[in-house]
């Protein structure tokens, strides 16, 4: 039986987007339908994810053209988990948007585009073909371009110019990498490429292609020194948009690095050394950058860069334990980064500003809500027993046993600097005496909101916090899945067999005259 449910997480957002377009001028209906659409996608993703956690790898060949000739979708445990988390984060952002996005943005297609973004994300997690991965990346970036500029404020357009330029450049470099790889190997299917590359003697050209992919994905995942577009643009759109960007867009780049490099290029020690150097530098520059910022969304933007370094370090070390740490951190980071950007949106509604000097007094005024925020920030720092602690433990353990002391030191330093940055945010926003800034005071909207709106704005934060707490307190469940994923990544044969059960060619020699 063909496991058609594999592509449901792609089809449902597409269907929802089409339905939403019929309600173009009715923002009220769009808000409800968008949440329903994301809810359905979440259910389909959960169904797919719990099937992949058994260790089975599902593949769908479009139009029944067998791999490597047709278009392939593959779902292993890594894809399954990421599809689930992306759908969960998008569901939370969709509730937050329903309550917080103004009618102006909603009547210009905000909600359909949000669905297209999720379609692109799920598509890239499930693609089994490198050119399809490129196409899904384009679906993601064109949706994100619309979301980042929708509204047309000055800061948005300025940030968008940088964001658009570097993302287009990354796409061109990625496409160049595909061209070179196709020129050497004559194939695009990832499983087929994995077989062919391990048998190929032409290491020089393969490494050229690998570096092109590294730069292309590196710009998208904002690793050192290709991250400058991120802090220049992520703080400009509405909080709901930065939440889904901060939570998911850079993580797609990391996913692509893990998937493509583990299947094709990671055997080369040179590539692994490059990863380790870039990881160490990303961790430290991101964390140092976060300390110097005054805008809370920019603090979190720099922390994204720093924490991307943790995942890249795990990929660079490439032992089972290190990969477990890398994918565990990836899962934790999607939930927490989405959540902190949503929280920054709530803080803006409460105090009318994103800047630390205008904030203050939140703990006095909203003690219960502040405690929820504190849990999220503690888990971002990695305080035990919250979710950020466990992957760091795995990464530290593996870096120590493998003698990668640079990574060991960088993780400790970056965690410590993250702590300083978060303490700075906490002191300025929550404990400091409130500052009376006239412009900011006029923008405070929290007291005008009706209770149901307040509830809908806080609900997604509660959902994501619950998920974070679950990861933290039931870490053994997640770590079992991470172990399965790490083993699937290291042993490529399962993936290859799932895509191409018949390794020998289909052509019957008797037919050749």
């Amino acid at each position, binding site marked *: 039986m063909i496991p058609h449910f594999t592509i449901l997480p792609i089809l449902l957002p597409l269907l929802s987007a089409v339905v939403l377009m019929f309600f173009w001028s009715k923002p009220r209906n769009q808000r409800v339908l968008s949440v329903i659409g994301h809810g359905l996608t979440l259910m389909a993703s959960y169904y797919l994810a719990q099937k992949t956690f058994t260790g089975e790898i599902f593949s769908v060949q479009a139009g029944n053209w067998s791999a490597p000739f047709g278009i392939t979708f593959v779902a292993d445990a890594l894809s399954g988990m990421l599809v689930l988390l992306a759908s969960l984060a998008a569901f939370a952002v969709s509730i937050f948007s329903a309550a917080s996005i103004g009618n102006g943005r909603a009547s210009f297609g905000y909600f359909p585009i949000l669905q297209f973004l999720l379609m692109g994300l799920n598509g890239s997690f499930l693609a089994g073909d490198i050119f399809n991965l490129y196409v899904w990346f384009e679906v993601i970036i064109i949706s994100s371009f619309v979301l980042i500029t929708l509204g047309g404020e000055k800061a948005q357009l300025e940030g968008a110019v940088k964001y658009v330029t570097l993302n287009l450049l990354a796409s061109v470099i990625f496409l160049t990498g595909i061209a*070179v790889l196709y020129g050497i190997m*004559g194939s695009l299917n990832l499983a087929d490429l994995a077989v062919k590359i391990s048998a190929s003697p032409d290491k020089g050209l393969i490494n050229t292609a690998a570096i092109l992919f590294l730069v292309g994905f590196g710009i998208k995942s904002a690793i050192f020194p290709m991250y400058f577009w991120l802090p220049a643009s992520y703080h400009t759109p509405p909080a709901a948009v930065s939440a889904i960007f901060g939570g998911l867009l850079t993580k797609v780049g990391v996913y692509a690095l893990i998937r493509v490099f583990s299947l094709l290029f990671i055997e080369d020690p040179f590539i692994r050394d490059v990863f380790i150097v870039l990881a160490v530098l990303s961790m430290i520059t991101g964390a140092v950058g976060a300390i110097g910022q005054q805008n809370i969304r920019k603090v979190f933007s720099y922390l994204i860069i720093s924490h991307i370094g943790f995942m890249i370090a795990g990929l660079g070390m490439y032992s089972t334990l290190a990969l477990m740490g890398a994918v565990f951190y990836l899962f934790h980071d999607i939930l927490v980064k989405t959540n902190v950007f949503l929280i920054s949106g709530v803080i803006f509604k409460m105090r009318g500003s994103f800047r630390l000097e205008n904030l203050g007094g939140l703990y006095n005024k909203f003690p219960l809500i502040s405690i929820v925020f504190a849990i999220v920030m503690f888990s971002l720092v990695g305080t035990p027993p919250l979710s950020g602690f466990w992957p760091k433990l795995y990464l530290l353990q593996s870096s120590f046993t493998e003698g990668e002391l640079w990574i060991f030191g960088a993780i400790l330093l970056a965690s410590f600097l993250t702590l300083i940055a978060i303490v700075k945010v906490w002191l300025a926003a929550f404990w400091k005496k409130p500052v009376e800034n006239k412009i900011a005071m006029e923008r405070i909207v929290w007291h005008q909101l009706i209770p149901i709106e307040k509830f809908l704005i806080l609900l997604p934060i509660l959902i994501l916090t619950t998920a974070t707490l679950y990861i933290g307190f039931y870490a053994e469940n997640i770590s079992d899945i991470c172990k399965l994923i790490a083993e699937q990544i290291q042993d490529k044969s399962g993936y290859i067999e799932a895509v191409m059960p018949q390794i020998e060619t289909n052509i019957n020699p008797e037919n050749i005259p």
Partner: protein
Amino acid sequence: MEILLAVTIGLLYAAGIFLILRRSLVRLIIGLVLLGNGANLLIFLLGRISKGQPPIIPEESKVFLDAYADPIPQALILTAIVISFGLQAYAIILVKRAYRVVKTDDIDNMITTDEV
């Protein structure tokens, strides 16, 4: 023919990167267009160019008897052209809007989002 194409692709990439590094927004867009075209031609070239060998199996046979032109690069280029067409249209409108709102086409003056 290969050498001619290779030189053209190199020129397109070089010109594209040079224009991206300029400060003017319009040159930025033209640079991105040139880079995209260079990448498309590169796929075309690396798919091996051959003349007058359509990938069609003769009726009396079941497999290819002769060398044939690879149809996949052309399908890839078609997809990539359509995508880059959409993205470039978007980028041109973005630059126009950004020019109207920020009132400059000098990228060095677009620094407010980089301030602390």
